């Protein structure tokens, strides 16, 4: 399933993606109205949180009105017409990736439109597909390991 991903060791936490998102969908600047968010944690971690479109999605299972559906591309979307704003999906999500925006009724979540990917000044945001992402991560770890081994050899 596709989702928005950023390497937390490369993301700088500028929140340009967040503002771009809120402007794309609401025509205002307001991080609380964005479909993704960036959480800064010590030490030096900036974590982009966006819906992973889980295979077995707790939000879908929690919805009493069948207002949360999956498109043919695998993206989970909220059907505002069927949603009564009960908020059970928000409680069910383990990632905190779906929320009801200020003054809103129905919850919003990332629909992987990619507007933020284009706006990221560091180029670290990307549209990821689970299996490719796993491969990429393994390759990155291997690269880093190579660096460590080389530096150990040089210093030893």
């Amino acid at each position, binding site marked *: 399933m596709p989702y928005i991903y950023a390497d937390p060791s490369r993301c*700088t936490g*500028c*929140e*340009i993606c967040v503002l771009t998102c809120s402007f794309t969908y*609401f025509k205002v600047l*307001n991080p609380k109205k964005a479909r993704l968010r960036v959480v800064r944690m010590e030490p030096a971690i900036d974590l982009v949180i966006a819906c992973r479109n889980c295979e077995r999605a707790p939000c879908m299972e929690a919805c009493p009105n069948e207002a949360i559906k999956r498109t043919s591309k695998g993206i989970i979307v909220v059907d505002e017409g069927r949603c009564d704003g009960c908020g059970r999906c928000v409680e069910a999500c383990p990632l905190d990736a779906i929320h009801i925006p*200020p003054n809103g009724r129905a919850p919003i979540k990332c629909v992987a439109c990619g507007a933020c990917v284009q706006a990221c*000044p560091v180029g670290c945001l990307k549209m990821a597909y689970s299996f490719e992402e796993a491969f990429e991560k393994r390759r990155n770890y291997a690269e880093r390991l190579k660096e460590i081994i080389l530096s150990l050899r040089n210093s030893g």
Partner: protein
Amino acid sequence: MRYKGYAGRILWIDLTHEKVRVEDFPEKLAERYLGGSGICARILYDLIKPGIDPLSPENVLMFATGPLTGTLFPQACRYTVAAKSPLTGIWGESHAAGHWAPELKFAGYDAIIFLGRASKPVYLWIDDDEVEIKDAGEIWGRTVLETDDILREEHGEDVKVACIGPAGENLVRYAAIMNDRYRAAARSGMGAVMGSKNLKAIAVRGSRDIEVADPEAYMDHVRRWHRKMLSHPFMPDRAKYGTTNLIELMQKIGRLPTYNLRQGVFDEYYKIGGETIYRKYLVKPVADFACLQRCGRYTAVYNEPYRCMGGGPEYETLCSLGSRCGVSNIEAILYGNWLCNNLGLDSVSAGGTISWAMECYELGLISRDELDGLDLRFGNEEAMIELLIKIAYRRGVGDLLAEGSWRAAKKIGRGTERYVMHVKGQEIASQEPRAQKSMGLAIATAARGADHLYGFPVLDEVGFEKEIRERFGEEYLPEIADRLNPKYKGFMVKECEDYMAVVEAVGVCKYGTQIPPVFYYQDMVDALRVTCGMDVDVRKLKMIGERIVNLNRAFNIREGISRKDDTLPERLTKVPAPLGPAKGHVVELDQMLDEYYRCRGWDLETGKPTYEKLLSLGLEDVAEDLLRKGLIRKAES
């Protein structure tokens, strides 16, 4: 408020009577002063009575964002904090980036004004319309990082905190206000003013919209600005080194203050420079809100005794705790930087004060006994670190050094005054003006005492000839671009001061507007039009900048400032640089000052704006006020 981009409201907090009031942001104020440094200059000129004690309840502390703060304009994340300075006794103002200022706007406030003094330690909690003065018993006495942790534990992970550390509580005259843990509004002692008001912190959460005037065109403009910023040739180095590689660049042109500004080159510069930090200590570049340049650093020292990790350092700190104190142990400097952040100290004035004490100690003007037994030679990093802690808590000799080098020297006497590297009571930052004449002038004229950022005339520093031509015209070249030539520097500093005032008024960073010089007046005009719907042009903006600078000057004139105070230490104007590329040079200050006052339309003899000048800027009330007090004259007709 008719204009978009603004939150449209100003928050008034009367600490003495524990009263909270919300007022609309007057449109006239926006049109004449924009926001940030501009509205601070205007409102505080009216609110602060001349002659008051900066640490008394009569002082007024004001935080202000700009109309672009919190928007997608590159680096639009800044706020101004201003009051009468306890370090200089004149206009005090400081700026910082981070995520705090945008959050304040998302909560629905452009500015906060603090009056009076709380009877016991308090902090301000803002959650959109809920504004509360709360008891700070639990956080008073805590460091900056502890305070941030506790307040976010209490109010939520997404809350943004601006606070003071022990230095501010103990009224160290150069205490900083820290926000988002590692961001400092450091200069001119705003942290001490906050401490004197018994105000420990301001915690904010906001969920309101910032609207833009032209939503259809907005994103096209944003993409254009971002492309323009990202395509600048400076960008890769900025991300890689932040400002740390300025150590190497400044060494190359002999502009790296060393041994209390005795000289502009440091033999061991490479040990404290950008390359060392990048290779051994950088964890990650971090950005502030809406920042594309990511010059912020996150660094870590893994070994004892200087084990630490956190934000920074900037060039300023590397120099002031490094070459300026003769310290080449980079791990000690990084630890000192961490300490300054955590204790809430201005690292520039702290390093400046310590390096003054070091020189006086080596010359035998201050004895070891007076320094609590510390062997304060240049290069003694252990003593430097110990002093930082003593200063923040005012322990032992720290109590004296917490007053700043100028006051400390006046107290000690014995000729130590000669070695104070200050203007108007504030320590000179990490610029050796003998190697860049425009900087010497800018430091002498800046409204908050010695300060490189007020005018920030860096265009002649590393050859931005193309930009100089675009901004000022062909006729001033080549002299204006020659950093060792005093010619045309009065003109350049005047122009830069006006522009920097506008930049701080709209809430964006000097990086990206001045160095590298990517955005200029026309970009600000576009941004204000599309974001705020404000009908401005370049001429109007230039006038706003000039108006702010003149208002700052008027504030200082009321406090007794005139040409006699626009000066530099004799070391810089009389003693030729002993070493390096600027060897033999002094700062030709008087010549540049004459040109500067002439360009400003100020009286050549007194350095004061004329009555007519103030009128032409629409400052009739200020002109009348100064005239009535006998501080300025009308031109003889």
